[in-house]
């Protein structure tokens, strides 16, 4: 990738924008930009909501509390609509996912050259500012959700119940191998589809912003303005989809057949 980045012209520009700031080699390497921005955005989320939670009163709420409560009620409604059990984890998990993913995606609305440009001035060669255009970030969430699905399936249905579900559904005990294959594909498809859907949408969105940035300056606003407006919808929708699917998957894990 490093060699490609030195390529000239449009291709070089695009590749440069989509290359992560990376240290290390092979698997044990880190994308510093992804880590930095996701921790930063997580911090923003935590700071805002903690601030609101500290000042939370049952009386007249302040502006921050109002907004935080709006989010809480929105997430709580989604959870109540889908999930019919008691869990202390699912609603906070859903809130974290929604806000974190939304903030990830929101980074996409910064003009593509601003942050990498500033970083360039500081001597950082590569900077990819949108964490959700990094498969590591999206898979980190979806794999965590996958682990939770497995954990709750076993916890609610018991190891035997879960194994039975894997082997005997949907076609009964006579087709056990086929059932198992089907179920495994179904389960594994969950995290992969979660991660790839978010990654694909945001990667493509970012790519289009970069392509627009390659056009002459007088054409750029005509295209990037409507695309940015459209993108406001996309980033919210993707965050919402990730959250809702997480709730749905976890409530499926809680359902005992």
């Amino acid at each position, binding site marked *: 990738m490093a060699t490609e980045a030195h390529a000239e012209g449009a291709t070089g520009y695009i590749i440069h924008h989509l290359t992560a700031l990376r240290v*290390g080699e*092979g*698997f*044990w*390497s*880190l*994308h510093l930009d*992804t*880590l930095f921005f*996701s*921790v930063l955005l*997580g911090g923003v*989320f*935590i700071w805002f*909501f*903690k601030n*609101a*939670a*500290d000042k*939370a*009163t*049952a*009386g007249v*709420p302040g502006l921050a*509390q109002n907004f*935080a*409560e709006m989010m*809480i*009620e929105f997430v*709580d409604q989604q959870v109540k609509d889908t999930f019919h059990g008691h869990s*202390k*984890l699912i*609603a*906070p*998990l859903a*809130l*974290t996912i929604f806000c*974190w993913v939304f903030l990830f995606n929101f980074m996409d609305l910064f003009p593509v050259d601003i942050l990498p440009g500033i970083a360039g001035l500081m001597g950082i060669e590569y900077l990819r500012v949108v*964490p959700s255009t*990094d*498969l*590591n*970030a999206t*898979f*980190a*969430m979806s*794999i*965590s959700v996958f682990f939770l699905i497995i954990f709750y399936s076993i916890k609610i249905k018991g190891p035997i119940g879960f194994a039975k579900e894997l082997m005997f559904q949907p076609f009964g005990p006579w087709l056990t191998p086929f059932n198992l294959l089907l179920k495994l594909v179904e389960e594994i498809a969950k995290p992969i589809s979660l991660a790839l859907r978010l990654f694909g949408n945001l990667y493509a969105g970012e790519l289009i912003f970069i392509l627009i940035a390659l056009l002459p300056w007088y054409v750029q606003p005509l295209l990037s303005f409507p695309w940015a407006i459209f993108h406001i919808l996309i980033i919210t929708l993707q965050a919402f989809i990730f959250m809702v699917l997480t709730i749905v998957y976890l409530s499926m894990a809680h359902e005992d057949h």
Partner: protein
Amino acid sequence: MSINATLIGQMITFALLVWFTMKYIWPPLFDSLEERKKKIADGLAAAEKGQEQIILAEKKAKVVLKEAKDQSSEIVTLAQKRANEIVEESKHTAKQEGERLILAAKGQIDQELQQAKEGLRKEITTLALSAAQQILGAEIDKAKHQDILNKVSSQLG
């Protein structure tokens, strides 16, 4: 586009965020929401109750007002009756007093009459004596003729 150790870092970050949200963010905000919901429900219930109480109080006030009116008219009636009684009583007293005064006056008049009679009697005695003196041309012994004089004066009474 390679999967690498960033994944692990991201997962740790994610886990920490979820833990923090679960522990420190969700409960206070959610509780304050629930508490406010309860407060509002209580407030609405109290308002409804208050209104019911107002209606009750209005009814009660009407009853009390009616009672008061009845009572006052009763009092007025009683007072009128009492006033009539007092008037009657004072009329009676006045009449009695008048009668008494009349009686006293009559007594006094009688007394005065007696006195006048007494005076007259004496004077008549003197007059009769002097008249008899003149008629007889001689002095009558007052002591000798006392019996006669007494007879005359008692006839006058």
